[in-house]
Structure formats: structure tokens, C-alpha cells
């Protein structure tokens, strides 16, 4: 495999559009956590005002709910939650200006098509590696919805968090591709 590509958000967000599915990326810079309850709020505010709240246009959503601060770090453990649960809301958020999402697992085809339509990407992080991923978070600040607990909208500052391009802007999807090639390798 080739060496990972370093990307700093939001400055290098446009460079994500150049990356092919399967490329490993070390993500630095700014992302926002958003899970199920967060999405309900964001989409309601978007419907009311017609624009993404909290200056989220051109930003990246990380489907994650961290544990509280621990070991001298701003979050204890943090990792991707199942992206599929956010699929119903994702096309409208990409249309409104979200440029990338980070999660785990295969997604509905409507998300793949929306990535193509809006030049957005879906990035996969390793579920279950949350103590490790937590060491790549250097700052965390709650932006909205503190009453949601771990589902609050939190701005994170990342330092080389490892992810892979799971849907690229041309609509290639890693889970299906990886499975086809691996199953081919695995069979005698």
C-alpha cells in the first residue's frame, strides 16, 4: 500500500476530492462530532433557516460520541459510530455544504450518489480503536446542544487521525470493492 496522505481541515478540504477510494489519510485540523440526536437538531435548524447552523458549511462531520476527558487528554476514547444510521439526513447536509463525513460501515446508495452530486467524500475510521484514536484529538470544545450529553455538537482539533477514503467523489465505494477483491484472494 502507498503511504498515507496528510490532509488538514478545513484548509485542504478541496484536496479530499482528488483522492481515490481506499487511500489512507491522516486527518488533522477541525471536524465536528454529530450523532443521531445531533442530526435531528441540525436538520431541523437547516429546514427552518435554509442554511447550515454553526458555520458548518465546508466543514466535516465525525459520527462519534466521545467518552469524557481522561489520561490528560481532551477526550478519553473516541471512534466512529455506524454511518448507516445517519444516511436519511446525509444527502441534504451534503447539499447544504458539508464536505466530508467520518464514520464506519457501508452506507445507502443515496449517500454515494450525493457524494458524487456535491463533491463530498465519506471517510472510514476503525471502529473499536477508540483509545488509540483518542490520542489523535488535541482539543475539544462544545459548540451546541450540551444537553444531549455525548451527542452534543463538539468541535475537535485532530492531529493525524488515520482514516480511509470509503466513498470518493466519483462514487467508488470501498466496502463493496474491498469485499470483492478480498473474497477473490481468499478463495482457493
Amino acid at each position, binding site marked *: 500500500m502507498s503511504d498515507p496522505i496528510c490532509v488538514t481541515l478545513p484548509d485542504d478540504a478541496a484536496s479530499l476530492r482528488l483522492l481515490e477510494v481506499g487511500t489512507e489519510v491522516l486527518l488533522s485540523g477541525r471536524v465536528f462530532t454529530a450523532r443521531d440526536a445531533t442530526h435531528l437538531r441540525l436538520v431541523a435548524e437547516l429546514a427552518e433557516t435554509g442554511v447550515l447552523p454553526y458555520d458548518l458549511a465546508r466543514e466535516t462531520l465525525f459520527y462519534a460520541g466521545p467518552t*469524557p476527558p481522561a489520561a490528560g487528554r481532551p477526550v478519553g476514547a473516541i471512534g466512529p459510530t455506524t454511518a448507516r444510521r445517519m444516511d436519511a439526513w446525509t444527502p441534504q447536509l451534503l447539499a447544504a455544504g458539508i464536505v466530508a463525513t467520518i464514520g464506519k*460501515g*457501508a452506507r445507502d446508495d443515496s449517500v454515494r450518489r450525493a457524494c458524487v452530486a456535491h463533491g463530498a467524500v465519506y471517510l472510514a475510521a476503525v471502529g473499536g*480503536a477508540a483509545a488509540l*484514536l483518542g490520542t489523535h484529538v488535541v482539543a475539544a470544545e462544545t459548540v451546541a446542544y450540551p444537553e444531549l450529553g*455525548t451527542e452534543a455538537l463538539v468541535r475537535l482539533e485532530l492531529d493525524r487521525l488515520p482514516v480511509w477514503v470509503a466513498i470518493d467523489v466519483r462514487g467508488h465505494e470501498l466496502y463493496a470493492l474491498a469485499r470483492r477483491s478480498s473474497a477473490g484472494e*481468499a478463495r482457493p
Partner: protein
Amino acid sequence: MVRSADIARSVYAAIAEAATTLRPDVRAALERAQAIESSPRGREVLGQLVENATIACRDGVPLCQDTGTVWVWIELGADECPGGDLQAAVDDAVRSSYRDHALRMSVAADALGDRTNTGDNTPAFVDVTLRPESGATVHVMLKGGGSDNASALAMLDPSAGVDGVRRFVLETVSAKATGACPPLVVGVGVGGTFDTVGKLAKKALLRPVGRPAGSPVTAALEERLLAEINALGIGPAGLGGTATALAVAVTTAPCHIAAMPVAVNLGCSAMRSVTVEVA
């Protein structure tokens, strides 16, 4: 004599251990999988998971940010009389352990109506079964949403046979594994009734990885399923490879002559459980 307070103390300590220390059998299985994984990306993912276990244990931080709902299964000596309010004692232990160890609160007050976070990870899901031997064996499992969501139950006809069970497990893993944090521990229950077969599948997850079922027929099904699941190509984190599952554990039970209940409860790569004896 076993008191409710003794059980609560064991639950408090077990939660912290399960959240931060990977089961030794699971860790050893991850390392074995890394040594034989065919996909370079898969090997890198497995490397992250092994390093994750080291960091979590060293720093006392959770293995996974989803520190789960708490399932407590108490096998209680029939002559024991724990006294007091056992559910309340266990809930107190959950509340204080989640707070003291900076774990994530992940319980909604009501599934259908008020989905407000209860803020203290209670209630715990508690089962008590009786046994002739004195004392108590307390099993504590922290179950993440991703892997529990990727589970399934079917009421098959007896004519479906072993092959019908096999196909149902494969279909479930094939459709849902990428969100369940593979490599998986696949728990399968066969038998019982509609309400008990899911518990059989969950109990199967307590069995050490690598230990086959006692019955040769069941062990043969486990072995075949593990090979077939690992030929699906899903791989570590679903990003391709051979290590889709570390183990398949099947638990069986009697059932109605008309029935063949089957349940699949997927355990993630951080499969978290601790079993303690309370005298």
C-alpha cells in the same frame, strides 16, 4: 451468604475492567489474526486494534467510546438470599462506576417516547437464574450499540435444519458486519422460545474465543461457519480481508417440536465481558 451489596461491588469493579482491559482470549485471537491476515489494509487495522488494547490498558481509558449498556447475569445459589433491592443496588454500581471511570452514558430513557439520555447509564439489564451450588457467579457484559444493532432473530421451521441455521447466520453477518466492528465474535442461539433464544446467543459470547462447543455436531457447525464467514472478504473494520470473525460460538437448547428459533448476537472486536465469583 451472598448479599446484594457484594454483587453490586463486583459489578462496579467488573465494569471498569471490561471497559479498559481487552479479554486475554480476544487479544490473543487478534494477534493470531494479524499474523495470518491476507490483506495489507486488514493487517494495518488489526495492528491498530492491538495497539488500541495496549493504550487503553496503559492509560486506563476505554477500549471503545461506546461503553455500552450493561448486562448483568447472576447465577445465584438457590439457598442464597441477597436481600434488599437487587436491581437498585446494581443500578447504583453502574451509576458510580460509569461516573468514576469517565465512561460514556449511552442509555435513552424510553425507546419509543422520551429518548432523553438518562445521564448515568442506568438502568442495567439484569437477569437472575438459580442453581443448586451456593454462592453466585456474576457475568458483566458491556454491549455497544453498533454490534447489538447488527443482530437478528428468526423463527425457522424445523425443516430448515442445520443448513437453514447456517444460512441465516451467514446472511446476517454478510448484511450487517461492516457496522459491527469486525473481526467479530459471533454468538448464535438455537432453540428455546422466541424470548429466550436471544439470551442464548448473548450467553454464547461469554465463551472463551477458541473453545469449541461440547457437542460434536455443534462444534462442526461452528467450525464451518467460521471458515465461511472468513471467506466473505469483509475483513477487519469491513475494509477487506480474511479476519471477519475471530470465533463462532453456538449455544443450543430444547424447543417446541414445531420450532427452530435462531438468534445471532454479534460481538465486536473489543468484546467486553468479565465473570466473577461471589462467595
